[in-house]
């Protein structure tokens, strides 16, 4: 048998003898370790084919939507769109940015989850997690490093739609930065939700394919929720307002709602925290379940309290989410609570019209607004002859008034009448939009040729340099 003294010591090992004999190492510098971790996550990202496929696909996806949007916008502009009242149709926000950035929505649902799952599951599959988790760094910090790199990856992929903005500008198109940035913010938050969800699924499951199925199941679940909300209304409608498609839709209309931002951020943090809990393989399953339940309780609390946040900012150039400023000032003087009872079924188009044109705008200026929907069926088709169906009752300061009109003007008129407020003088300064009849010149070359070529060349050189 060998004894510790049998082996030959090199000069260097002898020198290091003292340093080995200590009982414990000092805690590594957290910042330095985190930098190394970020670098490692970046290298793992660029080593993954999923990431390059996402990047490659973004070009054609954006190309299809942008070219189609510019053509439609140009056709409508060629039909003389300068008449007042059609301004909304010639707002680049609705005509160009919403459809162009919808490519991001597709990528966030069908491509980004696989990139995120690859980054989280990869460590588990390869066994790297067993090494990395021996660092005393908290698991949330480790998952945060992955989330930061994935967010950076998403911003890189967002260069494709931002390239579309440059092209639009080169055509002479109008860009209103606040509304464009609002759309970008919406898609970044949406990507954050996807990253958090995919990370949680990857941490919870043993295999990446299970994580992918779980992530897509949740996504399909939100679609089902939207469907139920459209049919049932009520609490379902409220919940559906925080699903990714509904959240993105708000931003695509140039509206930043504090409640949507807070709820989204709460869900992102909860998803990452959940992933962190389940990446701690050295903790018993029972304890991880208990921690998950506690996290769920905190998340629900954050979502409920965040959902009550009122502030919102309409950053669309044409103030499409707001009443005219004079009306908002007049409404601001009404202190009494306003009740609205709407006798329209969830799927009745008049209800959607009323919601979009009047109620959504009223919510932004009247803090004490209570809306109640009354209907016996979901589609309302067989309720048309029922008594009161189609009626919209407004109640303010003990007075009630009924209207059947679903326009913003009608709603305002009724409210002013009930409040005894003199309607403000109409302002003739109407948003006329930015019509532009132009062909999407060069866009096909950029998105179907140059972008994919750049991605392929970058992938080749970056991956080669890495090894």
């Amino acid at each position: 048998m060998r004894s510790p003294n049998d082996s030959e010591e090199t000069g260097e090992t002898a020198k290091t003898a003292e340093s080995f004999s200590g009982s414990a190492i000092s805690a590594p510098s957290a910042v330095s370790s985190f930098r190394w971790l970020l670098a490692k996550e970046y290298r793992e990202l660029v080593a993954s084919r999923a990431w390059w496929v996402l990047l490659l696909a973004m070009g054609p996806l954006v190309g299809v939507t942008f070219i189609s949007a510019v053509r439609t916008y140009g056709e409508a502009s060629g039909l003389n769109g300068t008449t007042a009242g059609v301004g909304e149709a010639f707002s680049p926000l609705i005509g160009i940015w919403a459809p162009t950035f919808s490519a991001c929505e597709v990528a966030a649902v069908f491509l980004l989850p696989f990139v995120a799952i690859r980054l989280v599951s990869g460590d588990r599959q390869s066994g790297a997690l067993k090494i990395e988790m021996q660092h005393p760094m908290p698991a949330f910090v480790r998952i945060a490093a992955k989330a930061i790199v994935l967010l950076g990856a998403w911003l890189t992929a967002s260069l494709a739609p931002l390239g579309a903005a440059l092209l639009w500008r080169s055509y002479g198109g109008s860009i209103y930065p606040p509304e464009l940035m609002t759309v970008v913010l919406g898609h970044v938050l949406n990507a954050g939700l996807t990253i958090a969800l995919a990370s949680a699924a990857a941490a919870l499951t043993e295999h990446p394919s299970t994580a992918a199925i779980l992530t897509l199941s949740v996504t399909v679940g939100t679609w089902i929720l939207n469907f139920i909300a459209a049919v049932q209304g009520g609490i379902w409608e409220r919940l559906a307002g925080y699903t990714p498609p509904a959240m993105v839709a708000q931003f695509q209309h140039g509206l930043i709602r504090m409640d949507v931002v807070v709820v989204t951020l709460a869900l992102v943090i909860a998803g990452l925290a959940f992933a962190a809990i389940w990446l701690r393989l050295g903790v018993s399953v029972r304890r991880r379940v208990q921690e998950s339940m506690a996290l769920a309780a905190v998340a629900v609390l954050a979502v409920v309290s965040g959902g009550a946040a009122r502030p919102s900012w309409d950053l669309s150039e044409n103030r499409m989410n707001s009443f005219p400023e004079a009306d908002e000032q007049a409404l601001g003087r009404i202190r009494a609570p306003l009740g609205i009872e709407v006798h329209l079924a969830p799927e009745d188009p008049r209800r959607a019209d009323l919601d979009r044109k009047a109620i959504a705008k009223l919510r932004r200026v009247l803090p004490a607004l209570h809306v109640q929907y009354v209907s016996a069926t979901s589609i309302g088709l067989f309720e048309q002859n029922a008594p009161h169906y189609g009626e919209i009752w407004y109640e303010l300061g003990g007075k009630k008034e009924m209207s059947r009109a679903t326009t913003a003007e009608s709603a305002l008129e009724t409210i002013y009448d009930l409040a005894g407020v003199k309607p403000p003088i109409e302002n003739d300064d109407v948003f006329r939009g930015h019509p532009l009849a132009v062909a999407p010149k060069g866009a096909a070359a950029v998105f179907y040729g140059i972008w994919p070529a750049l991605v392929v060349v970058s992938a080749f050189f970056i991956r080669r340099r890495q090894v």
Partner: protein
Amino acid sequence: MFQARNLTKRYGRLTALSDVSFSVRPGEVLGLIGPNGSGKTTLFECLGGVLPLDAGSLVQHGRPMSDRARASTLFYLPDSIVPWPEQSVRWAIDFTLGFFHGRVSLREEVVQRLDIGPLLDATIGSLSKGQRKRALLAIGLLMPQPMLLADEPFDGLDLRQSRDVAETLRSYASAGRTMFLSIHQIKDAARVCDRFVLISGGSIRGEGTFEQLASQAASRGATTGDLEEVFLALT
């Protein structure tokens, strides 16, 4: 260095570790010897903190070790892993050195001793089992913790490489590093270890130097010519 006291681990109805107790002394090469399925890897994963224990604790200086104390005392090198498969060996070593604040001054020496210089630019995923084992051992030796737990450090190595690795491990143990090696090849264990922990069926069947274990086996009437015979007598 620390004592393991009554470690127990169950997978459902199967008890993988049952009241496992032993001690680890500073600067020694301790061998965990046991047949396949005896609970060696489970024990190492529990010690390394990558698998939760159902009962028992690690005790240092008479007090239970916290997770942080364990993380700063021992580094566990798992078997059969291919970490960061698309990264080069050079980068993996640099990363672990930077991430764990490892012993940078030993880098060149360890690379030379384990003969992984020619592998530095190869990706970890492209290495053979033996090459990967040596690359991962290099990482383990460069970690700052005073104790290294290596699961099957000779698995995949040929005879010459096994001898070289054994010599390297001994060398660092002589320099003060404590080694706890899980080994199923008894000849390898006999070549490198100072003391042994024998495990079978999730229970400890003996702990001590060869002489102590041989004496224990002899008391049961067994022949004790070498470690293999001692092992068979006690397990």
